[in-house]
């Protein structure tokens, strides 16, 4: 069983569209995250949720909205997609100090 699974793996869409990326973890972790990895491989935290409560909300456009229906799921919804949103988005989960477990990523390409 995959510990942290993201769907879809690839997403190609036109500018202006709205899209969602789903993330699920079966590790029983309390905290889930979204990271953005740009073309230079730099990883930037976007959001962090602990037990469905938003605890980190870095400076990202408000077109990005995370939603956590329960502790095992953290979805990322993006409105009015722009070319600069093209990147790889990683979901991760953690339980205190044990390090993060990452999903395999969603490669978003906006054309």
């Amino acid at each position, binding site marked *: 069983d995959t510990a942290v699974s993201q769907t879809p793996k690839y997403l190609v869409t036109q500018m202006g569209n709205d899209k969602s990326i789903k993330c699920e973890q079966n590790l029983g972790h309390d905290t889930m995250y979204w990271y953005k990895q740009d073309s230079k491989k730099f*990883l930037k935290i976007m959001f*962090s949720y602990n037990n469905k409560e938003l605890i980190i909300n870095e400076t990202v456009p408000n077109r990005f909205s995370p939603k956590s229906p329960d502790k095992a799921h953290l979805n990322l919804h993006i409105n009015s997609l722009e070319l600069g949103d093209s990147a790889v988005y990683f979901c991760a989960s*953690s339980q205190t100090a*044990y*390090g*993060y*477990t*990452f999903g395999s*990523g969603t490669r978003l390409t906006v054309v």
Partner: protein
Amino acid sequence: AQSVTQLDSQVPVFEEAPVELRCNYSSSVSVYLFWYVQYPNQGLQLLLKYLSGSTLVKGINGFEAEFNKSQTSFHLRKPSVHISDTAEYFCAVSDLRNNNDMRFGAGTRLTVKP
């Protein structure tokens, strides 16, 4: 807030040579330190972590790292690399009070040549 600097963006080495990937961190409080590896088109995999105790930490695939508090460093080493070690390596830090905020370095691209 804590931050990480990876001093080398690219490290080319020959197969079976030793390698060291350098990482320095900055934080006003005690920290947890991590190294992750990312193979092409894959997610990040935890190599090793320092939480407390012995400053020499051993991880998977023959890697080890040493925590040096006075130099605020956490360099990653391997005595003999293989072609399959070619990947992107990330150093990361989170502080003890808030492990829910992990910050990554910019990454070091390790290329092992035959």
